[in-house]
């Protein structure tokens, strides 16, 4: 095996559009739950960064389609849904987001309504050209499979009919052929780009006087493509709108500009015309928090009526019953493909349980405890002077034999109404706490954390299940963990001579790799938009959760690695609400609906992304009840952590002792 190759080196490979690699690395596990993407109708595809949504949207691209054909690999979309043309626009890269950077008329104030008309006009021209590019690209080698006919007669009919259509207000009149049509379409968007970047003095009059209505030219183009026979009637046309959510940055240039442009996009979805279907990839809360207002109306988009929502996160999330949990299959498939592609000599095709083979089953909690507390195990017990000698002696003996059981025993005796056990020391297994299966299960991770804390050792992260728990249903987290673990293995000189087969990833290697991945994730938080404030908050609550779990010797609160807040309270404070949702949208916090222990207000619970758990030495799994807090406490955490400079309640800065820091010499 090539010991110098880390098959997980490029994290984003499956998200990239390098078509030849894509076909080898793409996993079709998500196709079935994302099938609406390939059916007529508008779709909003929701997913966190790294969830695989770009990967799914990439399947719509002609270059990917052609790469499958070249590689002679069956296109993963079911045949009955594979007659489609994919096209799209990237709202940032196309420069459409530059509208508003320069007034169309220098003597007039910025008029958002007018700007949104120009925005729509640019969008129309760009998308129509992209549809034609896609048809030409696919028509060269896939005309029969998709249903494309680019004969001279069909294209001539199409160009003639389209260029005379009223929707263009005469701009495309007298266009002779497809090449000229595309040239005119491109010239118009280029003129816009030149103007918006101050390369020409004025927008030409012929553009100002032929502004099109958003969406209409797109629909008319596709209709005429069908009528003229360029594409068959059953060929679907899908249009991707990329980086929709980044438009909100424009609000910093001019208030409400970004949201106005978003409402123009909504208008496309609101047309409810089955000729063309739009696809928008977005983060879950970004979409939910937006107004979804439709430009020029007071109406809003409605799910099911104007579009269908597909949530990749929900597809990959583990329910309590684990029914329909497909993430392990997805991860296993991706892992397999990476190794097949980059380490062909590893012969992984013949290994159905590859993840198990590489990462192993891991340790049981008891084994982990013994491994963590290798020497002087008695240290894990904090004996109190008031305890009977017999109980203290029992615990210390038990710690040497089974540190996990001893730690649980210590907590058991400290719990309410259970102290009598100290006077009646049990003699034989199973001890009372060992018989309480769920009590033990809920406290195992907290016990491990406390054992590690008392012995000043780290927690062990080892085995397939730990890797899945830390991945939290996110494929980027999973790949990141694999990347760092593999990296550690490659650095490890102990196995250099025997690197002929799959790696042996013992618990030292896996733990170290996991810690490196976790640290990297934490350090990278600032690289996201609003990441600085999120990082400060995560640092605060991560440290708080660690203290919660280590200081709780009774183990009464094993679920205090998360917090729960009343939704109504949260939504009454838009700044905090937005902050938490932004952090969740960027994948640093995890949000869950919370069914509280007592009937009352509806709550939401929040945890760190599991991959951050090793950095803060806290459990990755979520058990029992999280901390119940008020919005005031949350506000206090935000100001204490300096994520917010001012309290949202008092509007005053937290008073604290000034640290003068390093003084200058002069």
């Amino acid at each position, binding site marked *: 095996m090539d010991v110098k190759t880390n098959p997980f*080196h490029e994290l984003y490979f499956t998200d*990239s559009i390098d078509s030849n690699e894509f076909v080898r690395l793409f996993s079709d596990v998500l196709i079935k739950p994302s099938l609406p993407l390939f059916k007529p109708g508008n779709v909003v595809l929701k997913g966190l960064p790294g969830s695989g949504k770009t990967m799914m949207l990439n399947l719509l691209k002609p270059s990917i389609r052609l790469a499958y054909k070249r590689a002679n690999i069956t296109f993963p979309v079911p045949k009955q849904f594979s007659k489609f043309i994919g096209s799209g626009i990237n709202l940032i890269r196309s420069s459409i987001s530059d509208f508003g950077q320069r007034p169309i008329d220098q003597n007039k104030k910025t008029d958002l309504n007018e700007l949104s008309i120009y925005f729509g006009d640019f969008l129309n021209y760009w998308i129509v050209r992209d549809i034609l590019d896609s048809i030409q690209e696919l028509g060269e080698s896939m005309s029969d499979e998709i249903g494309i006919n680019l004969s001279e007669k069909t294209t001539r009919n199409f160009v003639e009919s389209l260029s005379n259509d009223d929707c263009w207000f005469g701009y495309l009149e007298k266009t002779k052929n497809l090449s000229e049509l595309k040239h005119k379409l491109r010239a118009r968007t280029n003129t816009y780009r030149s103007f918006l970047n101050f*390369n020409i003095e004025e927008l030409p009059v012929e553009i100002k006087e032929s502004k099109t209505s958003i969406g209409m030219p797109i629909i008319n183009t596709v209709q005429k493509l069908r009528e003229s026979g360029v594409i068959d009637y059953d060929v679907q046309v899908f249009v991707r709108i990329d980086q929709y959510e980044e438009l909100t940055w424009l609000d910093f240039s001019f208030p409400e500009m970004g949201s106005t442009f978003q409402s123009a996009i909504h208008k496309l979805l609101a047309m409810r015309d089955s000729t063309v279907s739009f696809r928008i990839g977005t983060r879950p809360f970004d979409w939910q928090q937006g107004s979804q207002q439709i430009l020029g109306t007071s109406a809003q988009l409605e799910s099911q009526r104007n579009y269908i929502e597909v949530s990749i996160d929900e597809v990959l999330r583990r329910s309590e019953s684990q029914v329909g949990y497909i993430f392990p299959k997805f991860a296993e498939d991706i892992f397999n493909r990476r190794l097949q592609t980059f380490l062909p000599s590893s012969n992984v095709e013949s290994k159905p349980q590859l993840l198990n083979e590489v990462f192993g089953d891991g340790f049981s909690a008891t084994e982990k405890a013994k491994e963590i507390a290798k020497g002087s195990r008695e240290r894990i017990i904090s004996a109190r002077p008031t305890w009977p000698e017999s109980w203290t002696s029992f615990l210390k003996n038990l710690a040497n034999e089974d540190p996990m059981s001893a730690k649980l025993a210590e907590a058991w005796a400290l719990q309410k109404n259970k102290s009598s056990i100290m006077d009646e020391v049990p003699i034989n297994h199973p001890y009372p706490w060992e018989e309480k299966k769920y009590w033990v299960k809920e406290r195992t991770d907290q016990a491990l954390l406390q054992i590690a804390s008392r012995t000043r050792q780290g927690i062990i992260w080892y085995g397939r299940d730990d890797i899945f728990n830390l991945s939290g249903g996110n494929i980027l987290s999973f790949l990141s963990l694999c990347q760092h673990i593999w990296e550690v293995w490659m650095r490890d000189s102990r196995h250099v001579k025997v690197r002929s087969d799959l790696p042996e990833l013992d618990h030292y290697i896996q733990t170290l790799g996991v810690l490196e991945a976790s640290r990297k994730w934490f350090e990278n938080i600032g690289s996201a938009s609003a990441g600085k404030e999120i990082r400060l908050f995560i640092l605060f609550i991560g440290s708080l959760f660690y203290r919660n779990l280590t200081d709780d010797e009774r183990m009464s609160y094993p679920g205090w690695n998360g917090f729960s807040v009343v939704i109504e309270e949260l939504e009454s404070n838009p700044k905090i609400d937005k902050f938490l949702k932004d952090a969740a949208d960027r994948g640093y916090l995890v949000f869950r609906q919370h069914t509280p222990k007592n009937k009352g207000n509806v709550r939401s619970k929040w945890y760190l992304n599991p991959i951050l758990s090793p950095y803060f030495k806290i459990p990755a799994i979520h058990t029992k009840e999280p901390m119940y807090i008020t919005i005031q406490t949350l506000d206090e955490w935000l100001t204490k952590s300096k994520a917010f400079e001012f309290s949202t309640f008092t509007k005053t800065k937290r008073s604290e002792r000034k640290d003068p820091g390093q003084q200058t010499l002069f």
Partner: protein
Amino acid sequence: MKRYPANKWDFLGCVATEERCLSAYNFLVSNNLLLGATFYEIVDPFETSEHGQMRDRNRSKLSEEGIENINIEDHKLLESSNVIISSILTFLSKSSGNIILDISCFPKRFFFPIIKFILRNSQLSNFLVVYSGPHSYSQDRLSDNPQPWMNIPTFISDEEDGNEVSIVGLGFMPLGLPDVLGTDNSQGKRFYFMFSFPPGPPFTQRTWAFIREISNYRKIDTRELIRVDSSSLPEMFDKIHALTNNGLDKAIFAPFGPKPMSLAMCLYACQSKSAVYYTQPTSYNPLYSSGTSTTLAYCIVINQRNLYQL
């Protein structure tokens, strides 16, 4: 300064949180070389009262020790390009044609279009760009909260076709760049990474950390690392010229490196009409740097002759 053809200059700078923002200005004032000065005070979308206090401190110094003909304009980091360009056109309309631009504390979003419009000005006689390096940078993160990968205002190419040579300046904070290298069909493209050499500690470690970070997303071949003296503007400009096959190949730039390196990219992009992309941070460390080391001056236009032409 005596060797330059002009005796008096119009100065354009940025009053920021850092001490170095006034170094070049103070030198020019003390040598009685300025006709007038315009400073931009740029407020970021995400900042604390500490930012404001530190800028106020420098602003007070300006009014205490400066010249009479001084103008301080309020700007916002993400304001529309139109506001930036209107402002520079106003500055140019009042200028003597001898201009000194201090880029030490100007964000790229500002100084790139400013240089472009200064160079377009037909009344321009002499144009110097000055840069004051700090004594030291903060050991903490310098900047955060980047915008998405987008072009710097007015630096966009009409004819981008995906075959451009991508030239990336290597610096301290690769904000958002890894995502771009990983997702933007970068695997097969021609990339060059301009590496400041000799950087000297602690810059060496931070620049290598930058490379290590981005190499997680795209493998970097050692032949793609181009070592340049990041204080030598002519060397960097010529190197870019060579990397683009003497200007025959189209280029796109990603200026993440030291300011003089970004300046070389800016001058080249102005001439070649190349696109410049960046992930503009929207939050800066108020203690970004301390002190001033040396101030470098680069002649761009002398006696109406642009020294950086293709």
